[in-house]
């Protein structure tokens, strides 16, 4: 019966502004709806169908969802004390595009349960696009890397928008918000935030400096390579590797001598990265490397051979 209801809704040719009860519901169906198992099954199938359908059919499914008062059930589930029921309700309202519940979902974006707040944050973005990111103003919990990936994926499905507030998030007290703001800056190539990103290079948190380095790779200008090279000696090994990696794409011949001077320190992985970067900027600089005193010694000799093989 659930299948039939959904099929009828999908293939129904309703006018867009049809009344509140656009689909005929039989007495038997109404009776069945009092059965919670049937209701659960119907909701599950409706959600599954809605996920895979767009256009007029999707609108019909949304109408059917409201006509059967399933949104009210979801609302009741939002108040459940069980985290997974709450999270399920948020997901359901998000998929069914129930924008009128914005405030209720928004309140859950800083819930103490990690899954509830993740679902709330993701679905707020699903419903309101970039504007939904306003929860970043207030969240006190850290955004995990997983959640940041999920949010970026959700945003990637929306048309790019010149949204503001990133500048504010770059100064957030929540370090994960800053890290996410940096990822937004590089994903959407927000060149106007260049100065704020440079400021992040001096942040006390290593991860933020790491993200800032990779963000500069996407919004760099003529001075960026020098800024990063100046920063190099004060950085941790991990961030030094990030700087060297980024230099591959933003540096010019002028940076090569300084990069070569970095070969005197750091571990062998870093040395290999430096040689790779130098060769990437200008292949003929490998000759310069071969003239170094240490070029015939371990590990530089083997590293140079490997990089020569790579660029052939």
């Amino acid at each position, binding site marked *: 019966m659930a299948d039939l209801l959904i099929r009828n809704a999908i293939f129904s040719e309703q006018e867009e502004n049809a009344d509140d009860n656009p689909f005929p519901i039989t007495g038997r169906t109404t009776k069945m709806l009092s059965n919670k198992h049937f209701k659960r099954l119907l909701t599950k199938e409706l959600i599954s169908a809605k996920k895979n359908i767009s256009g007029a059919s999707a609108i019909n499914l949304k109408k059917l969802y409201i006509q059967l008062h399933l949104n009210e059930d979801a609302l009741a589930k939002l108040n459940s004390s069980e985290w*997974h029921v709450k*999270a*399920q309700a948020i*997901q359901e309202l998000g998929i069914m595009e129930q924008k009128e519940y914005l405030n209720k979902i928004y309140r859950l974006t800083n819930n103490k349960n990690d*899954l509830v707040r*993740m*679902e709330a944050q993701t679905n707020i973005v699903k419903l309101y696009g970039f504007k939904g990111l306003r929860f970043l103003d207030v969240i006190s919990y*850290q*955004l*995990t*890397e*997983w959640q*940041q*990936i*999920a949010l*970026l*994926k959700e945003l990637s499905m929306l048309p790019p928008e010149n949204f503001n507030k990133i500048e504010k998030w770059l100064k957030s007290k929540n370090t*994960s918000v800053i890290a996410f703001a940096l*990822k937004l800056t590089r994903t959407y190539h927000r060149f106007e935030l260049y100065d704020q990103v440079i400021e992040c290079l001096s942040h006390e948190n290593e991860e933020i400096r790491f993200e800032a380095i990779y963000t500069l790779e996407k919004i760099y200008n003529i001075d960026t390579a020098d800024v990063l090279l100046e920063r190099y000696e004060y950085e941790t090994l991990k961030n030094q590797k990030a700087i060297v990696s980024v230099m591959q794409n933003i540096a010019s011949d002028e940076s090569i001598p300084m990069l070569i001077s970095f070969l005197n320190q750091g*571990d*062998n*992985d870093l040395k*290999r990265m430096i040689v790779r970067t130098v060769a990437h900027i200008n292949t003929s600089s490998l000759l310069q490397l071969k003239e170094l005193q240490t070029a015939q010694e371990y*590990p530089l000799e*083997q*590293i140079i*051979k*490997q990089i*020569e*093989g790579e660029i052939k």
Partner: protein
Amino acid sequence: MSWQSIVVDTFTNIILVYSLLLLSLYIFIGLYSIGEVRKHLLKNSFTDYRALASSSLAPSISILAPAYNEGANIIENVRSLLSIYYNNLEVIIINDGSKDDSLEKLINAYSLYRTDHFVNQQIQTKAVRGVYKSSKKVYRKLIVVDKENGGKADALNVGINISQKDYIVCIDVDCILEQDALLKLAKPFLETTSHRIIATGGVIRIANGCKIEDGRLVQVNLPHEFLPRVQTLEYIRAFLLGRMAWSRLNGLLLISGAFGAFDRDIVVKCGGYNHNTVGEDMELVVRMRRYMEELNLPYKVKFIPDPLCWTEAPATFKILGRQRNRWTRGTIETLQMHKVMFFNPKYGLLGMLSYPYWFFFEFLAPIIEFVGMACFLILALFGLTYWRFFFGLLGMVFSFGIMYSSFAILMEVLTYNQYKSKKDILRLFLTALLEPFLFHPFGVWSAIKGNIDLLRKKNSWGEMTRQGFTTAKNSKS
């Protein structure tokens, strides 16, 4: 009261307390695992792994697969690994001085050429003879390393030296991985901000009897032979109950060598795999944990209950005996190497619970059982056995074992339900009934042999002959 009766009474009481403690721990583990499995399943129902698959932010992973004389199936095994669904990946096959034609086969099948690859000797290993890459773009993820024979730990260390990614996944080359195995294994590394996840493991299942096509598992079947079937039950019990409970406690000491992911940075800082033990997988996890504890760094070792890796289980008592013998020696060697942690509060839960548990209930259990059986036989011989009490106790112990296995089967059916037919579940249940009589004594005997071999300083790996999945496939068809 004579001194003899005092000795006997004391001994009996110690055994009684030990047994009650062991049974209580099993009950605790069984019940405690429920919450963790349930939480994982509920969380999983909200997870869209495609987000990670398509993201440039996915952590970079190197699969390390040591191979020794695997020529018969190496081409298919590597093809299977190359087909894994993960973006930021390199697959490193380490040919550990095979005496067969494994390397030649790989060179021909994957158009490999020798490169001047710099091997960063962060961990000391046997010499690397050559590093090969493919001239075909489609195999760009593949790196084959040829090295002098040095054993599995040494081969994995070479892989760690070659790897340039953030995480390493160590597997047996003949394992079949689920397509989304790496996505699922990588997720825990990204899910926490307060602790560093240093290692993750997933459930290993028995592939005997399953249908494998082109290196992929296409149909799950319960093994037809008794030995692989009883191991299937054993693995369900160990992974779904034991490891999940220990993971929840953050006290897990073992990520199976057949399939586990590790934070490469921590592995290198700890010095990689130890080739002085045959239990290198357990030893590495214990050493990594010890390293984090000593530096007072917050960390976790996570385990996920999804069946991610399928492996062929030994089908003969001879091969199985070697495997269990080796596991016993590995456990004892690891416990010896890290004895400083024994009831040492400096190591927190690791020293006060995980280590003592392994010492008393993994290392000592078979010894106590064996000694108990010997004492029983002597007492029976002298007519000193109170038979009614004996049979009552025996019945209770067997019933407990069968109930525990039945609980594990129930958990399997309620969660992943890999063996869908009722007939298979019934066969699994019948196996649980037979296990205490036909399999458990063998396990105890193999462990005793392991102890003896260790005392005799025998440290061989023990040859593991495999039938190969093709046989399993043919036997089915």
